[in-house]
């Protein structure tokens, strides 16, 4: 479970490179759509129907700097949509929040989570002040703090990242506001259209007993999807072809390891003790090639031939894969002690150039390995197995986040309307928001330089914040495509400083390209875990035992501590130890949502 958090965090850390999360408003016409909620607001709220106000004027009047670098010759202009009627509120309001933070959430001198360029802008534009009530870094801490807030009946107004179990407990204790109807009333048409497109999945995580207790946010589509990263320089040195199939991967890996191209400790393919899906050095495409769905720390549920759901870990194909992985291990494809190493501990292996093949998202283009060992990474599609090319993917909405509010929260309308504006501002492709000159970046002599603070970590969701969530799951892809295709056309001497920086660094471009590539394959290659209900009763009781048994048995088979026959015993104990019962319960749920 914690791996999931890490994955998202690390994703975010790198999201800045793709620029996706950082983009905002500029050249598109946008007046009309934002004006829509104004009429509704006028009906329900107040008699005032003021003309929409220019955002830039409001900021100037409040003495808050404008985003972007309009005055720099190498800068750009950041246009903002007009603020909807009725804002800024005549009587400013305060909304408390709960958010994740860590060492990457940094501020310029004197600023903090409650007072920074973003909060000052929101106060000036909307009359909404945000006060952060609780933060956490680790997921344990997050649950503890929410528990404490529950126990003292003092919940923050907007709660991000409430763990599933805690969310259900909050509903059970009748502490949450039913946000669904309010969202129906105040969300903009654009927002509604995006959510409608997602179908049932968008609301599934926030719906309990038919009531929608939270507002959904998506994670960027395909952000977990891996590509196969290969050391091109090693391939060339050994005169090898780029690997296409599972067998190719084995052969190339063994060749790399035997040639000891990365020193005496060279091995072939990056892997760790989470052999299902993991955020770093995953091997999920190997399972996927055999039609076995994976997930974080367990296998997934996929459709059997008769249309029912079956658990990946007990499919007969698993035996084939285990047999193969055992061979691979013996042949030196993996690090000798990969089973004692977790995903978090693998970065040094890349940085020091020990391995030449890896399944990773964009961070497979490891900067340190390029710097230290002159690695020349290329990315390829995942290999084909007997069942085709398949990889772990989570539905952007099921893997996203939900935002819930306590029962007595009075400003859901204002929060939703502010988010409407932010979607226009930040999720219109081609719009420019790279933060504030001198805060998030600096342009010295026409050269763009990233500074440490990241403004999007200061914001309040569901659009943005630490552990980036988006409203449109495809936004990042669209934006990245735009960067690569449209900006590439601009003659080099006419690019502004930000555009120039995007193309100056080969690793950044490589990452952008790999992300777009993964996005293009996403629809055809995604193998979802189809079970997205709450844990069933038997699952709650024995599933963690079954996963323990699975981890122990499978790893032992791969490293040769146990014979391959141990798999058959495992399947038998899995079934009799509650697995059959769980399968029945999962299918009951599956029928209920058809």
């Amino acid at each position, binding site marked *: 479970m914690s791996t999931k958090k890490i994955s998202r965090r690390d994703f975010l850390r790198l999201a800045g490179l793709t620029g996706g999360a950082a983009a905002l408003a500029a050249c598109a016409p946008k007046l009309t759509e934002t004006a829509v909620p104004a009429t509704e607001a006028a009906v329900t709220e107040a008699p005032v129907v003021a003309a929409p106000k220019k955002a830039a004027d409001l900021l100037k009047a409040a003495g808050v700097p404008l985003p972007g670098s309009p005055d720099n010759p190498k800068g750009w202009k950041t246009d903002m949509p007009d603020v909807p009627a009725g804002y800024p509120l005549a009587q400013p309001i305060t909304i408390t929040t709960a958010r994740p933070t860590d060492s990457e959430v940094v501020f310029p001198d004197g600023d903090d989570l409650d007072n920074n360029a973003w909060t000052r802008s929101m106060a000036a534009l909307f009359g909404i002040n945000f006060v952060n009530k609780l933060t956490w870094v680790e997921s344990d801490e997050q649950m503890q703090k929410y528990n404490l807030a*529950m*126990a003292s009946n003092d919940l923050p107004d907007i709660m991000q990242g409430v763990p599933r179990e805690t969310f259900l407990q*909050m509903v059970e204790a009748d502490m949450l506001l039913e946000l669904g109807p309010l969202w129906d009333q105040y969300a903009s048409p654009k927002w509604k259209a995006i959510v409608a497109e997602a179908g049932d999945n968008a609301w599934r995580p926030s719906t309990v007993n038919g009531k929608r207790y939270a507002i959904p946010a998506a994670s960027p589509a395909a952000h977990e999807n891996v590509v196969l990263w290969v050391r091109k320089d090693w391939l060339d040195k050994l005169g090898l072809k780029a690997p296409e199939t599972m067998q190719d991967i084995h052969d190339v890996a063994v060749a790399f390891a035997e040639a000891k191209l990365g020193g005496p400790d060279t091995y072939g393919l990056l892997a760790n003790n989470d052999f299902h899906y993991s955020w770093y050095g995953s091997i999920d495409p190997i399972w996927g090639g055999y039609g076995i769905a994976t997930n974080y720390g367990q296998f997934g549920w996929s459709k059997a031939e008769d249309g029912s759901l079956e658990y990946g870990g007990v499919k007969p194909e698993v035996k084939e894969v285990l047999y193969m992985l055992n061979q691979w291990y013996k042949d030196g494809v993996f690090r000798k002690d990969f089973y004692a190493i977790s995903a978090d*501990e693998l970065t040094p292996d890349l940085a020091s150039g*020990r391995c030449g093949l890896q399944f990773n998202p964009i961070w497979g283009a490891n900067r340190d390995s390029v710097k230290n060992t002159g690695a020349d990474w290329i990315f390829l599609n995942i290999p084909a197995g007997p069942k085709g090319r398949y990889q772990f993917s989570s539905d952007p909405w099921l893997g996203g986040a939900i935002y819930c509010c306590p029962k007595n929260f009075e400003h859901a309308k204002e929060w939703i309307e502010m988010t409407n504006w932010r979607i226009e501002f930040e999720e219109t492709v081609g719009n420019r928001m790279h933060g504030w000159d001198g805060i998030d970046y600096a342009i010295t002599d026409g050269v763009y330089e990233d500074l440490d603070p990241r403004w999007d970590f200061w914001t309040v969701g569901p659009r943005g914040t630490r552990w980036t969530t988006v409203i449109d799951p495809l936004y990042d892809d669209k934006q990245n495509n735009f960067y690569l295709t449209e900006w590439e056309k601009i003659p080099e001497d006419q690019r502004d400083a930000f555009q120039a920086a995007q193309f100056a660094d080969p690793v950044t471009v490589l990452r952008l390209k790999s992300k777009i590539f993964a996005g293009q394959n996403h629809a055809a290659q995604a193998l979802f875990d189809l079970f997205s209900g709450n844990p069933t009763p038997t699952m*709650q009781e024995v599933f963690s035992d079954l996963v323990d048994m699975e981890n122990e048995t499978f790893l032992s088979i791969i490293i040769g*501590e146990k014979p391959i026959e141990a798999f058959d015993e495992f399947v038998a104990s899995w079934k009799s130890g509650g697995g059959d019962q769980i399968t029945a319960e999962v299918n009951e749920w599956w029928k209920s949502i058809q």
Partner: protein
Amino acid sequence: MSVSALFTPKFKAYFQRTWILYMMIIPTLVLLAIFAYYPMYGTVIAFQKFNPGLGFFRSPWVGLANFERIFDSPTFPRVIGNTMIIAISQMVVGQVSAVLLALSLNEIRIVWFKRFMQNLLYMPHFLSWVVLGGILMEILSPFGLVGKAQTAMGLEPIIFLGSNDWFRPTLVITNLWKEVGWGTIIYLAALTGIDPELYEAAAIDGANRFQRMWHISIPSILTTIILIASLNLGNVLQANFEQVFMLYNPTVYQTGDIIDTYVYRMGLIQAEFGISAAAGLFKSVIGFLLIIVSYKLADKYAGYKIF
């Protein structure tokens, strides 16, 4: 007996003499009440399907369901066994080594060197397992210091943290390295309390260093040794969660999975507080019984009576 009966002149005199001592106990009692006794009512969670939003009073009662889930689990016997084996070996090895180390430190006559060694030995105690875990994984990996040394000697590197044969010894030895220095403190204190005249007398009678150690040092600290040993009994079900959690992985569940790590995987990450409370209560009850036993043992063999 009425209250006034307490205030006999004798009691008054006693009170006047000792009241300041009683006052000194008060802060401790207050702390104990707040941090040990007051939270004890939280034990009810063990019998509930606890929901923090509903609190202790409104969470639904589930009887012994939480205990049933723990005891019914097929892996539970293994987990209990591992816990006891790891805890007892750490205790035995830890104590024997601490005594030997204390005796040796006591024999060092150069004061600065003794102090220096003591400091050096205490230091690892202050490292957290979270930090140490990372360092050990690096050192013990086949790419690390130990693995390299083995490779250099032409041996196949042993993967200490991935082998069911090596995992427990690794736990015991790393814990020993971390805690043994700290463990010597109490014995060193006991050794300091020995009357130096005894040693002088023995020296005059021609006893050499080992004879002095055997006939004076050890008998003098024997009470302390037995006392510590019997008090340790209460911790038989208390293997070091942080240490195991940092170092283990699924391939060594068979020998390394302890009650706490098992309950962590089973309960805490799924917000099942009832399960962890039930496991905690179970350990406390067993620990309590063992402490009573050890109290009797301490009385019998060390003549040590607390009450």
